[in-house]
């Protein structure tokens, strides 16, 4: 059953506007359906209270709502226990949490972490910080020109037993390519290395089952899943969370504090110091409920058709070079390109004036752009609310912009 895009769009206030934008930037931020906004609004209007330790009904309600958000996130990625879901402020914080807690106690000078060339800065900089702080080394999995990872690089990296963690994206935020997570995780496990999956992009485009994947850590953000900003998830296996030291210190993450010492709370509270993102957890739950109404098959088929259409239209534009495989069968979520003699910022500025939202720049993936031999690219990303007509308008405006910039 194909997705009913008209019905889907009606649920988004922004698309009910008289002149809605042509929004092709969902890889950066998903739009918000009304039920997400309403759920958060209701909490702020009628149920605002802090979680835990309030001996009144509102506080109970806030705690229940917050924990229901955790349960929704757990079910969405098929984790075993709710305690394996740590709320953070986004995927960036989730990865930093692993680097700054697990990394701090488990990595020594000379140990190595493997990354792929596709990584977003959020899965590079925390490890570069450990390189500076501890003296770990980073080993990189390069790619073929079509964006597929060179698995041989991983094998070589794993040979000497110094690799303690392999941390890779599930979906490139630039090329849209999908590394073979199962293969990577299996090989890492054979070499006794842990694995972290940056699912920031993958989360809204493919179903995720952390048990089947067999990864040790997985990170994603709420805002790319049609939920609010300011909330993210770190999934980690229970035994790992139990042994990791706390992250930030403060209220909520302790069992007992004296003038001399503190005893941390059990996970996940141990990693959630301070007042947590309560409204955001409520919004995330609403977003997951909204999103999971739609069958994965329908979402994947719709987005595949949109990307195939976009690639076909873009290929017809002279001087335009698609980065990566240029085949909808090999990507998900987004496709990026450059145009000879046209800087991405000039292009997207002109598109923006026509109400068409595309992102330009290095998309926080400078090593990848360096590998591609370019400074910046333009990215077109799709979601279940986009239509082929929007792609047509975009392609038309790209032609106009080129004519204008090259005249």
């Amino acid at each position, binding site marked *: 059953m194909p997705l009913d895009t008209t019905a889907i769009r009606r649920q988004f206030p922004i698309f009910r506007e008289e002149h809605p934008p042509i929004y092709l930037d969902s890889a950066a931020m998903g739009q918000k359906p009304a039920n997400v906004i309403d759920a958060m609004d209701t909490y702020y209007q009628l149920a605002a209270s802090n979680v835990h330790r309030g001996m009144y009904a509102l506080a109970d309600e806030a705690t229940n709502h917050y924990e229901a958000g955790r349960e929704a996130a757990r079910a969405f990625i098929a984790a075993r226990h709710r305690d394996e879901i740590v709320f953070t402020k986004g995927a960036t914080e989730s990865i930093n949490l692993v680097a700054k807690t697990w990394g701090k106690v488990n990595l020594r000078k000379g140990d190595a972490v493997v990354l792929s060339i596709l990584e977003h800065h959020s899965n590079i900089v925390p490890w570069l910080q450990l390189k500076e702080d501890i003296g770990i080394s980073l080993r990189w999995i390069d790619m073929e020109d079509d964006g597929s990872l060179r698995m041989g690089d991983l094998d070589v990296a794993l040979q000497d037993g110094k690799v303690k963690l392999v941390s890779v994206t599930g979906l490139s935020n630039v090329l849209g390519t999908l590394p073979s997570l199962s293969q990577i995780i299996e090989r890492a496990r054979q070499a006794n290395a842990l694995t972290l999956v940056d699912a920031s992009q993958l989360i809204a485009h493919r179903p995720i089952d952390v048990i089947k994947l067999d990864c040790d850590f997985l990170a994603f953000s709420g805002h790319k899943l049609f939920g609010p900003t300011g909330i993210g998830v770190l999934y980690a296996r229970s035994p790992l969370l139990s042994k990791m030291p706390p992250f930030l210190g403060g209220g909520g993450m302790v069992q007992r504090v004296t003038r001399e010492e503190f005893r941390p709370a059990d996970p996940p509270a141990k990693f959630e110091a301070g007042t947590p993102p309560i409204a955001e957890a409520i919004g995330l739950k609403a977003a997951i409920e909204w999103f999971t109404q739609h069958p994965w098959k329908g979402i994947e088929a719709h987005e595949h058709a949109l990307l195939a259409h976009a690639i076909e239209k873009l290929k017809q534009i002279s001087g335009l070079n698609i980065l990566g495989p240029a085949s909808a069968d090999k990507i998900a979520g987004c496709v990026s390109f450059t145009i000879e003699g046209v*800087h*991405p*910022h*000039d292009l997207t*500025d*002109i598109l923006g004036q026509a109400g068409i939202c595309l992102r*330009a*720049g*290095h998309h926080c993936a400078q090593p990848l*752009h360096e590998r591609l031999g*370019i*400074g*910046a690219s333009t990215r077109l990303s799709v979601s279940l609310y986009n239509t082929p007509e929007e792609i047509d308008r975009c392609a038309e405006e790209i032609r106009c912009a080129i004519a*204008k*910039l090259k*005249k």
Partner: protein
Amino acid sequence: MDLYAESILDHAHHPFCKGPMKHPTVSHEESNASCGDSLELRLLIKGKRMHDIRWEGEGCAVSQAAMSMLAGHLKGMTVEKAAHLPPRFVFDLLKVPIGPRRTKCALLCLHALKNALRKLDGEPAQSWTETIGN
């Protein structure tokens, strides 16, 4: 008024003073990390004046056109005056409204100029806040 007015595209396509310089008094490179625009400015200074100016760079039409326009006005200018040029000077040359998202594109040339002159004086580079704010 259109950001991509003819004059901006003309400068972007046919820039002034773009090219190498063999023995500059000072040369300095600045880039906008977020978009990959970069400019390298080379100044030949004689008697406290800008005797010659050359630059190389790549990036969006706004950053390249602004550099070209600014370069055309620097020749003969005193170092003292150049060091105190306000952002308004560049905006007036561009003659089109520059919104917040393109401010750094437009002022990359000024940022490079200010920091080239600070380098000449042995002073630490100024921040973007200082370039945009003064």
